[in-house]
């Protein structure tokens, strides 16, 4: 079976940003994403997600490498200073390239 290379961008951040980030993605041309609730610990302390105002989300986007870099750059520029946010990139393979 043929595999096609794509990039997986994973973002863990504050749930309060969800709507704003979805607008950013739409503007940048991201076609799909998956969002899950998340809990964890990092440089900004334990983020427990018990209280909606302090909840976290994990967003996963599979797309062309260039677009993933573009999204990452945009998020770093706009949100890194003041929000709890980490992001990391993986190389992944997909079977249906037209979807991503």
């Amino acid at each position, binding site marked *: 079976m043929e595999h096609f290379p794509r990039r997986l961008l994973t973002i863990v951040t*504050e749930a*309060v*940003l969800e709507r*704003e980030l979805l607008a950013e993605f739409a503007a940048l041309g991201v076609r799909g994403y998956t969002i899950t609730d998340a809990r964890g610990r990092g440089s900004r302390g334990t983020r*427990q997600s*018990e*209280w*909606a*105002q*302090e909840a976290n989300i994990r967003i996963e986007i599979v797309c062309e490498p260039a677009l993933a870099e573009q999204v990452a750059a945009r998020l770093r520029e706009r949100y890194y*200073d*003041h*929000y709890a946010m980490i992001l990391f990139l993986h190389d992944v393979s997909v079977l249906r390239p037209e979807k991503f």
Partner: protein
Amino acid sequence: MPSLDPVVWFFVFGIVAGIARADLRLPGPIYDFVSTVLLLAIGLKGGVELARDSGGVPALEVAGVLLLGFVLPMPAFLVAWRIGRLPRADAASLAAHYGSVSVGTFAVVIGYLATRGIAVEARAPVWVVLLEVPAIIAGIVMARGLAGDVAWGRLLRELFLGRSVVLLLGGLAIGWASGPEGAVAIEPLFFDLFKGILALFLLEMGLIAAAQMPTLRRYGLFLVAFGVLMPLASSVAGALLASALGLSPGGIAVLATLAASASYIAAPAAMRTAVPEANPALALTGSLAVTFPFNIIIGIPLYERLATALGG
């Protein structure tokens, strides 16, 4: 031992269980359901009463309550900035939280007064709606200045379509349209079960407040003092306004409580996006771990006494 309302004991139980790290917690959707029923019930009750006497809401009262919402954050900001020596953004965020209102506290004071047979103006939920947003706007302006780079359109839309505002207004409208006879059909869920649902809500709020308490150590004595003294001062402002507007003793107690309460839903979300450099944990901790418990356990009985003294 003071005779606490049983619902307040649920709150105390939640705090104790939370501090002891007991394996106790309402699932998120249940919390959402419980708070939805509370807000609808309060709106419906007000709407039904409005349909009965159809007094409407006097324009002077609307103006007075809106003005209270804009004015309350100002002394809070100055105290936090000058005396607390907080950064300007943090002081403004704290002021927005303390100027805005807590619907949970509102539900408790409504329950408290109902238990004692003290009547409240049917339009009380309208005061909540009027008080929720102005302080948040004032807080953003205090942090940013009038020319600040804020996406006001989107922000105001989110504030006015926020869950508590929509549910209270929806409940009011349905109650008003149905009238006392029509509302009989939904009484069992919304009116008869009110206290039990409030108890569940407060159990969860106790757990949430307890979860914020470890963070309190980071901010020290100033936040504790602010979280107790600011509501006391604001309650007097609210009570004096209510008295000047000629409200009943029950109405004075409610407006004093609303002025004293601090937001933990609308303000944190709005300040987080509009003033991202403000520390979100500071204001939320003050509101949830200090002011909410203070108002529920000690404040409301005090405000009721203040109202009786002012309203005769």
